Structure formats: C-alpha cells, structure tokens
C-alpha cells in the first residue's frame, strides 16, 4: 500500500509540475511577447470564449476525479484489515506510546512486528487527541480519547522506522516519538518468546475481571441478572430498543464504561455499575482481549500464573 501512495503522489506531482510549468510558461511567454512597446498602445479586447471555459473546467475536473478515485481506493484498502492480521494495542498518553502485545509484552515507544504479516493496531488515548504516524509505511491515524480507532499495515522490509505523534498534544508533542522494528519471522519468534512477565493480555484481563467483581455477575450469577460473556464477542447482540450491533472492541469498552447506553434484550437497565474513571485504557484493552478470548470454545476461564521468563520488552 505504501508503494501505491508513492505512485499516486508521483502522479499528482507530475500533473502539478506540468500544470505549473504550463502556467508559468504562458505567463512568462505572454509577458515577454506582448510587452508594452509604446505608451499609447491599446490592444483589442477579447471578452471570452465559452468553449474555452467549458474545456478548461471539465478537463481539470476529470483529472481530479482520477486523483479522487485512486485515493479512495487506497483509503478503502487502509480501512480493511485482513482477517489474519495480528493484533497489537497502542495507548497514547501525554507524551508516550504504550504498546501491549496479546502475548503479554509491553513496550514504551517501541513496536516490534514481523515482516510480511499484516498487523492491526488498536489505538486508544488516555488524555488528549494524538496521532500514530509511521511515515515509512505511509499511514497515520488519530488517536481520539473516548473511543477506539484501528489501522493496519503489512511491513515488507526489515529495518527500523520512525514513529511520530502527529496531532499536537501539548508540551512534549515532538518528544512523543518512537521506533518500529520490523524483524524477520524467526527473529520475531525469538523476540516474542521473551514474553511478558505478567502473562498474556488475556491473562491480565482475566485477573482484572475477577478483581473488579465482573465474574460475580457475568460468570457465577444464576439469577439471570446479566448476560454470560462466553461467545459474546463477535456475535450480533439485540438491545431493548430493538437495535442490534455486532459486539466488537468498542462495544465492550462502552459496556464497561457506560453500561446503560445499550441494554441487552431481556435484561434490565441500571443493574451494572459503571467503571468510568476506575480503569486505565490499557486495563480496558486487557479486559477486551480477555472477553475476546471467551469467544473461542475451551478458552481459559480462570487466569493462569504469570510466565516466569526473561522479558525483552520494556516494562511500564
């Protein structure tokens, strides 16, 4: 995709240079050729030409439509991560990037990805609007507080590339930079094996699920006060007002922070308390990953002990 962006950019550049050159040349040429020879000369008026006006409106517009079309194609591709994309979770906060891998590693301002494998990044902000920008991959996406945003890419060449924050966010906006390291498959396996010391994100989420009392209702409750969450992620949920929605990351987040926004059909409002202000964005993501893991049959219900291996990622 990055190459497509470069090709489109080059196409835009060529058209720009050609048009600019034409205009400059015309202006220059007319200025010289029709330079005033004596003070009293008065040229004949030429008031206009409808054909010319139509031509030089339509042709540029058609060329612009080609820009639009190609740009839209790239944009759509950017919005459609492949099904086999691996998930990585990035939380932006003033003034650092906190990166969590499902396997449990955590890094600050460093992202490690394997080459030739699609990566889907879920973005969350703890405070103001940031923007996650990797110039080498020709992508960026704003990180807006109060919601999740996603972007995806497939790195094609091993190396180290800049990460920049691209939405002004306060004092150290220009310090909110990092590096994405693209590794070969085998190097990446090795790196991953280092693991995080706290277990996978799902493990961490599971522990939170228990600590915060979620399991009391959502797992152990026999009175039918709240929906069991096994298999919920990815299914279509129906709500009391008749609307439906596929349960995705954003829905899980909303349900935790604002439970009465949408109440599942067959359940009552005002039963689940809100956790607004009690969880960081990273913790929310861990819960999301945990609940996602419940969609797979035979997924762990109780959290496992943390893997006691050396960690290569930076701890928060």
């Amino acid at each position, binding site marked *: 995709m990055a190459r497509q962006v470069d090709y489109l950019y080059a196409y835009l550049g060529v058209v720009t240079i050609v048009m600019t050159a034409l205009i400059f040349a015309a202006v220059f040429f007319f200025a010289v050729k029709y330079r005033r020879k004596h003070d009293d000369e008065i040229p004949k008026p030429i008031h206009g030409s409808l054909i010319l006006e139509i031509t030089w409106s339509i042709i540029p517009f058609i060329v612009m439509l080609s820009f639009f079309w190609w740009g839209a194609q790239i944009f759509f591709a950017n919005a459609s991560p492949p099904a086999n994309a691996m998930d990585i979770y990035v939380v932006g906060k003033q003034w650092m990037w906190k990166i969590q891998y499902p396997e449990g590693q955590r890094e600050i301002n460093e992202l490690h990805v394997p080459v030739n494998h699609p990566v889907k990044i879920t973005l969350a902000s703890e405070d103001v609007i940031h923007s996650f920008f990797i110039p080498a991959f020709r992508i960026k996406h704003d990180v807006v507080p109060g919601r999740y945003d996603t972007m995806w890419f497939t790195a094609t060449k091993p190396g180290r590339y800049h990460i920049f924050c691209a939405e002004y966010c306060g004092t150290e906006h220009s310090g909110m930079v990092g590096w994405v390291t693209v590794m070969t498959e085998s190097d990446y396996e090795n790196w991953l094996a280092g693991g995080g010391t706290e277990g996978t994100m799902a493990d961490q989420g599971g522990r939170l699920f228990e600590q915060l009392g979620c399991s009391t209702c959502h797992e152990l409750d026999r009175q039918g006060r709240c929906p069991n969450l096994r298999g919920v992620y990815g299914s279509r949920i129906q709500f009391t*007002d008749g609307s439906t929605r596929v349960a995705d990351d954003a829905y899980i987040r909303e349900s935790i922070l604002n*439970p009465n*926004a949408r109440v599942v059909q067959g359940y009552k409002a005002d039963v689940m308390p809100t956790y607004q202000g009690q969880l960081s964005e990273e913790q929310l993501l861990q819960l999301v990953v945990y609940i996602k893991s419940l969609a797979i049959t035979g997924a762990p219900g109780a959290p496992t002990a943390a893997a006691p291996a050396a960690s290569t990622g930076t701890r928060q």
Partner: protein
Amino acid sequence: MADSHGVVAEHAEHSPYLRHHFDSMEQQFDSATLGMWVFLLTEIMFFGGMFGAYTVYRSMYPGAFASTSMHMNPAFGAANTAVLIVSSLTMALAVRSARLGSQKALQLFLVLTMIFGIAFLVIKGFEYHEHWVDDKVPLFAGHWDYSNTKEFPHQAQYAKQAQILFCFYFFMTGFHAVHMLVGVGIMITILTMARRGIFSHKYFTPVEISGLYWHFVDIVWIFLFPLLYLIGNARKLI
C-alpha cells in the same frame, strides 16, 4: 415585511434624518432593513451552531435526554411562549402606529412590548431559580446533583450525559435571554426617541428594524420551546 412607503424626499426639503451618503429616504430605509435581515442571518447561524450541537448529543444519548426532559417545567415554558407571542403582536402594532404617524399609540405599544419582554425575563428568572434550588445547574459546583431521588429513582446512571444536556439547556436559553435583554434595551432607546417626536410616517426606520429584531428573538424561542420542553417530555403537563 416593509414595502416602501410612497413618499419620495429627493427634492429641496430633505428629511433631517437623511444621512448624507444616501440619495433618498427610500434607499436609506431599504438599506437599513436589508442590513437587519443580514444581521439576523448571522444570528441564525450562531444559534444554529448551538442547536446543531444539542441535536447531536440528544441523538447520541436518548436515555439521558428522556431523563433530563423530566426536569423541564413546561408551565414556565408555555407562559413564556404566550408572553412572547403577545409581545410580538404589540411590537407589530407599534410598527404600524409608527407608519401611521400615531405617536401616542406608538409609545403605548412600545411600553407594552417592553413590559412583556421584562415579564419574559422575570419568568425565566423564576425558572432558573427552580433549577438552582433543585441542583440542576451544572455550571456551579454545589448546584449540580443528579443522583437518584424518590421522584426520579433511575436517573443517576445518566448523570454525566445529563450534565452536557443541561449545559446546552442553559446556554441556549441563556444566550436567548441575553438577546431578550438587549431587545429590552433597544425598546428603551426607541421609546426615548419616540418621546422626542422623532418618528413620523416619513421616517420610522429604527422602529421597523427593531421590530425585525424583536420578531427574530421571538422566533428563536418558538423553536426552543418545543425542542427543550415539549418533545419527548416524559413528564405530564400540569
């Protein structure tokens, strides 16, 4: 709206109110009324921005909205609506009196309009006071409390969004009230001019354009009333 009154004042005696850069009273009148219409257009965009934002939040949070609407008192709203509509009538009558050159009637109707305008503000004051006492004023700490009460047992869940919606309620009605206050000030000014005998059937431009302003402020209220007090009101009208 105004059609130009047939008097042409171009020859020797010109009205002392003809400003030097205009060629005729007609041109001056037309310019003043067009100017006021353009100004009112800017006001529509100003209020429109607020109405737009309010609509966005209301559609995002229907539950919170239903809950906040129970705290609006349509009785106050209805009283204010009645007062404003009558005041628009008296304003229109004032403009008509000016056109006819009836000085006494003009002054009477201006005074009545002003009284109704002040009545509006007084009623609004009572309404705001009720919200203050009820702790429904999010702007001031200590006067915002959206916890469950006996009368409203399920509202605490909406506290955060209700805060936004109540803010908009106060901003929208507040900016409107400021415009009403300005309107009352304008009435005082016009009344003073009327008492000095400035207006006649030949010259009543300030009355005309004040009328336009007054009717506009009334119309904004006509939109605010149903939007804030009537639609989706889960509370029965008294």
